[in-house]
């Protein structure tokens, strides 16, 4: 089994064995180096290449598609070695036996070194040109990209305008080495090695498919590198996030905490909860909480590792099996841990399965109009301003061992008699009804009925140990026919609905009271 490459000799494509190609290339290089007059030599080499192309086509039959090493050996034997057919007029004056002295001086030229390059060989080409290590050029490009970002267009421009170092002669010119039989020989040998070791440059792998597709694939590999960088950045950010919020349990979820201030007045100030604080408020079973924390940590770790490894892999374009295996292991671990997390959360979800409701009557009122007031709506300052906001911001409000919640629901029904009937309903959720009722009983909400004034607190509280279990407070008001409820500036009446209600016999309207005392009626 032999590796072959596709090569274009004077417009004809041949599939040629790799060693045959190397032999042919070294022959042409030797020929170039042997001919002194550059103008003539180009034509002579062209002619000889035409002959080689012709001879190669003669070697190809329908049964034999590949130009083999033996074919090239035979062809080169027919053509003869340069020293066999070139006399003193054609050969440079230098003594051919003294290899070092046979030199073609060349000026250094900028080429793209696709064989040593990572993307399109721009950096390594520049490195060769300036005679510095490629790593410095690469770091410079990356730094420029991340600081000012113009290295990307620069890279593209250099890429487009710089020719690729195709032949060994090009490579020597790129390195600024003099072309001698010795250096050419070295270069050809290293070229053979490079071909054998398979180039790392993505673009180079596809170089035989022509320059255009080469550039497209090169672009793809450049995109690959940038995606890789993106993954690494993501991994680093995730790592920092994980360390701060997961490992050190840094609090970041905004809540407010109500504390007793001076003069025995309660006020709230902002505070933060950590992820585990929040979990504690949700998850029933302490062991579940530990599991969630553990799996969450593993998942975070996997996410970080995965993105870092993938990023490095994409940038270096390594095909190492170890890296692949590592990625798979990390990925599977991550998936398993996130599934475990979901399972734990789902298990806690069962704590929300059953709703328990309790209800008590606040009172019955016989009045022309029921007026609902909230404490905040009464809080008038010494001028005409009214305090609209209560300063409770954030995700939760914690008052000592209690959780403060808001949003009081209102349900209005038609009264069966001429009186207003007011009742208060608490609801909570749990895994069994009994527990749900228990939790509902723990809810505290202040409602006062004074004459035709119904004073309703905008908040209700329940103990922290009850956890967040969908605790809810609903005020149910039955309105007699032709009468209404006044809620600050809103008049709530069921009169319009009464005619329809005669047929339906069931009539209900709803509304909600927000924490800042604003009431919103749902018509």
């Amino acid at each position, binding site marked *: 089994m032999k590796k072959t490459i596709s090569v274009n000799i004077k417009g004809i494509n041949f599939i040629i064995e790799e060693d045959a190609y190397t032999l042919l290339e070294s022959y042409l290089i030797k020929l170039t180096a042997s001919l002194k007059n550059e103008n003539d030599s180009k*034509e002579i080499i062209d002619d000889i290449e035409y002959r080689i192309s012709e001879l190669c086509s003669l070697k190809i039959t329908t049964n034999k598609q590949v130009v083999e090493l033996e074919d090239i050996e035979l062809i080169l034997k027919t053509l003869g070695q340069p020293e066999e057919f070139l006399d003193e007029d054609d050969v440079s004056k230098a003594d051919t036996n003294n290899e070092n002295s046979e030199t073609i001086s060349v000026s250094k030229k900028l080429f793209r070194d696709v064989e040593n390059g990572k993307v399109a060989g721009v950096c390594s080409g520049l490195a060769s040109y300036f005679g510095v290590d490629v790593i410095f050029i690469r770091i410079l490009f990356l730094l420029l990209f991340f600081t000012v970002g113009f290295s990307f267009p620069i890279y593209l421009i250099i890429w487009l305008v710089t020719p690729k170092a195709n032949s060994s002669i090009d490579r020597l010119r790129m390195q600024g080495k003099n072309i001698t039989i010795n250096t050419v020989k070295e270069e050809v040998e290293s070229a053979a090695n490079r071909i054998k070791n398979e180039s790392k440059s993505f673009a180079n792998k596809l170089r035989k498919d022509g320059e255009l597709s080469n550039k497209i694939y090169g672009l793809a590999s450049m995109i690959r590198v940038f995606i890789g960088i993106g993954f690494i950045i993501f991994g680093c950010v995730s790592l920092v996030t994980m360390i701060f919020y997961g490992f050190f349990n840094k609090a970041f979820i905004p809540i407010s905490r109500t504390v007793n201030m001076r003069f025995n007045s309660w006020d709230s100030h902002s505070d933060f909860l950590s992820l585990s604080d929040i979990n504690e408020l949700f998850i029933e079973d302490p062991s579940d909480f530990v599991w969630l924390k553990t799996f969450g940590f593993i998942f975070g770790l996997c996410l970080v590792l995965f993105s870092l490894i993938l990023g490095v892999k994409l940038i270096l374009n390594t095909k190492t099996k170890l890296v692949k295996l590592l990625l798979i292991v990390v990925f599977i671990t991550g998936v398993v841990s996130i599934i475990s997390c979901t399972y734990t959360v789902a298990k806690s979800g069962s704590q929300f399965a059953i709703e328990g409701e309790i209800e008590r009557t606040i009172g019955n009122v016989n009045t022309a109009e029921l007026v609902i007031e909230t404490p905040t709506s009464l809080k008038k300052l010494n001028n005409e301003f009214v305090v609209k906001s209560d300063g409770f911001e954030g995700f939760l409000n914690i008052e000592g061992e209690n959780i403060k919640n808001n949003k009081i629901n209102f349900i209005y029904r038609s009264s069966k008699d001429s009186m207003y009937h007011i009742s208060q309903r608490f609801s909570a959720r749990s895994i069994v009804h009994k527990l749900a009722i228990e939790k509902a009983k723990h809810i505290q909400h202040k409602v006062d009925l004074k004459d035709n004034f119904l004073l309703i607190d905008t908040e209700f509280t329940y103990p922290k140990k009850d956890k967040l279990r969908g605790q809810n407070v609903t005020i149910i008001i039955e309105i007699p026919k032709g009468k209404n409820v006044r809620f600050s500036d809103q008049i709530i009446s069921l009169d319009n609905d009464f005619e329809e209600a005669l047929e339906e016999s069931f009539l209900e309207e709803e509304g909600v009271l927000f924490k800042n005392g604003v009431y919103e009626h749902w018509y």
Partner: protein
Amino acid sequence: MYNIILIITYIFALNNLNMSLENTQAQMRKGILEFCILSIIEKKEVYPSEILEQLKGAKLIVVEGTLYPLLTRLKNLELLAYRWEESNSGPPRKYFHLTPTGKVFLKELKKTWIELNGAISLIIEKK
């Protein structure tokens, strides 16, 4: 011997070449080869491979590479000109033909060759 050197000098004087005694042999072979190449081209417009076939048939050249520098040189001396022609079986071919100068040149060469041939056989027979 003196005659031969004189005649060879004449050939290469025509070729605008500097004669040097050290490469006489090489120049002689080269001169004869060039003469043959021009003669082949005179008969028919040909491309290098055809020339090679004839030269190899006549055992005038061992390695094919010899031909190309010579063709280039003759072309540069404006004795030869070529045109490109597509080929069905391989790469395009360079078809060579003689320029008017080339024709005159070859005529002179032929004359010289006949003279030379006579002279050589005369000398060799004498010895």
